């Protein structure tokens, strides 16, 4: 896997060299150093798949722009977060102090984001977070140097509350992983859900990395809700969904879950049994815009697989960065200008129109209700409703 990444890097580099020779920028390209972007993502451990998808998205976008922006070459330096915040801290230091990167991106774990926050802030290195979703990163712990192009936990789950109350059911079982994201997402959902007259029948938090969800399933069966709102990811989502179906609960209880649960990766592992599960997410496979069509086609062509929202997050993180570098015409020496450029960036993303909120440095974007479906032979999600443009309040 590593060698593949290497090889791609080299290939991209060679391609660029050829491009440079024939382009009118050849003089300046030869003169100027490439822009180095340090990427810290989990490539090993339980979140390895997330890191891989986000990287795919990033590279897809950079290929689209020929690995250049503002007239300069772009180089990605990838480091493994190892699902350990202490390692993230170390790797960020390496990228900044040894590799002298101009910008940072990536970061899977919210705890990693918190862990590197002070260092990044003091060093004044622009950081574009492509995943970590804890609200606090762009609220009380926000920094002018830190931007987030993925989601905040609140942002994606709050609008789902009223929609579920109106369209799915008033009695909902709340289930989430027992960690910060799970709790924040559930709290946000509940906030909107209660406002719309919903009644949570129970609230349950389960440990991360559980191998068995049958106890949870039993609790849900006993509580007899109309629907379950679950905030789970990775193997937890797979095991939960499979057991939910094995126990036949899908016959009587609807799933109205976080977008993480019906992530295309998870669906691939579950199969058709998840059909009909509803979720809230910032991206839907069936969004009918040209950026999305182009993205899906490029992804499927390159990786021979179905893209998911993690790839979109990586794709957009690079889109924001490239957009800002273009705005400052490749001149990163004036940091304030660069920050200003990211703050005011507006991009056309596969998820629709997305813009940076200059107050919080968190993206303002659409959130969609979607449903698991088989489309063109592919197991994915289809659009049910656009829940509107959502901005994180920043407090």
């Amino acid at each position, binding site marked *: *896997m*590593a*060698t593949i990444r*290497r090889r791609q890097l080299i290939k991209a580099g060679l391609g660029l060299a050829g491009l440079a020779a024939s382009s009118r920028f050849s003089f300046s390209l030869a003169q100027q150093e490439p822009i180095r972007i340090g990427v810290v993502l989990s*490539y*090993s451990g339980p979140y*390895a798949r997330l890191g891989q998808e986000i990287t795919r998205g990033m590279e897809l976008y950079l290929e689209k722009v020929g690995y250049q922006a503002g007239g300069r070459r772009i180089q990605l330096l990838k*480091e*493994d977060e*190892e*699902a*350990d*915040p*202490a*390692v993230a*801290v*170390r790797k960020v*230091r*390496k990228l900044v*102090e*040894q590799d002298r990167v101009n910008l940072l991106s990536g970061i899977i774990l*919210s*705890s990693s984001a*918190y*862990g*590197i*926050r*002070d*260092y990044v802030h003091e060093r004044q290195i622009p950081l574009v977070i492509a995943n970590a979703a*804890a609200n*606090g990163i762009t609220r009380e*712990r926000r920094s002018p140097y830190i931007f987030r192009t993925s989601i905040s936990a609140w942002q994606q789950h709050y609008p789902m509350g009223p929609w579920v109350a109106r369209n799915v059911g008033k009695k909902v079982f709340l289930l989430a992983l027992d*960690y*910060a994201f799970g709790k924040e997402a559930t709290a946000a959902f509940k906030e909107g859900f209660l406002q719309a007259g919903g009644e949570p029948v129970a609230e349950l938090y389960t440990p991360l990395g559980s191998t068995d969800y049958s106890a949870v399933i039993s609790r849900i069966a006993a509580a007899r809700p109309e629907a379950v709102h679950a905030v789970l990811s990775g193997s937890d989502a797979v095991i939960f969904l499979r057991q939910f179906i094995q126990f036949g609960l899908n016959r009587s209880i609807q799933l109205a879950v976080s977008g993480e649960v019906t992530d295309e990766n998870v669906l691939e592992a579950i199969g058709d049994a998840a059909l009909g599960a509803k979720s809230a997410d910032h991206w839907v496979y069936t969004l009918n815009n040209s950026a999305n069509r182009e993205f899906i086609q490029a992804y499927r062509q390159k990786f021979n697989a179905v893209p998911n929202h993690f790839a979109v997050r990586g794709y957009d993180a690079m889109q924001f960065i490239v957009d800002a570098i273009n705005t400052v015409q490749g001149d990163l020496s004036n940091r304030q200008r660069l920050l200003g450029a990211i703050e005011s960036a507006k991009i056309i993303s596969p998820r629709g129109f997305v813009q940076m909120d200059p107050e919080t440095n968190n993206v303002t974007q659409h959130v969609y209700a979607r449903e698991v479906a088989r489309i063109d032979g592919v197991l994915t999600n289809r659009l049910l409703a656009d829940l509107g443009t959502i901005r994180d309040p920043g407090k």
Partner: protein
Amino acid sequence: MMAELSREARAGSNGRQGLLRWGLVGLLLLPLALGGYPLYLATEAALLGLAAVALSLLLGHGGVPSLGQAAFLGLGAYTVGLALKAGLPLGLALLLAPLAAALLALLTGLLVFRTHGIFILMLTLAFGQMVYSAAHKWTGLTGGDDGLSLSGLSIHPVLLHLVAVGVLLAAVGGLRALLQTPYGKTLEAIRQNEEKIRSLGVPTFYYKLSLYLLTAALTGLAGSGLALHRSFISPHDLFWLTSATLMVMVLLGGSRGLWGAVFGALLYTFVQAWVSSFTDLWGLFVGSLLVLTVLFAREGLWPLLERRLGGGRGNA
């Protein structure tokens, strides 16, 4: 410490061994000249080295294979973090960390020494994971898995590194001196022949317990250093994999004699950091290193080095 080193450096056949140790100290101090990331890594290695030295003492001289050291490490880190948050001065916070770790050791040690071998391994693991769960669950105090940031605290990295290396060398020197005292020799005797030393009238339980407390306190101190070093604490530092990593460091370097642990920590930290930068299959690399070490350097890499360089005809 320095006196011990130079004495050994002068003493005949031990001369080259002494030189080897000076070399190791040099490796720890070299990054001061480089600064930046190498310095950061070296400080990390020195602090983990302190924890590894403690484990090495516990394992090699006390015969206790502990898989719960992360609990002491993390407790030390959280104690410093919370004490600083509560507004206590740094000195006091640094004093509290080893005390807290020793207190935990006292509570668990009473049970740990009732059993032996693999059961000790599992019991320490169990206690470690219970502390991990507590840190993870007690969100109000520890911030849960969001971790705890020590913002606003800035210690110059050079100073921190000097202090870390100083404490490490002082610990190695102090512990090696301690092993020469009646107390230390009694510990040696307990490892070699516990029945005999008991028949001579030594209540071995208290000796083992005190060793456990001492090593826990050192590990807690290392943890407090790591908290200052990273300015961030997460429950992951208490997870059992951290304990396993410490164990790997000790066994790589060699569990007899404390220098092996220092070497193991240094080697592991740098090799792991280096390898993980160009491949995500670093586990494969570390795993192979472990297997090869056992196959070709049974007592660990440090004794092998000592024999090759110390006993051989290398130019001293």
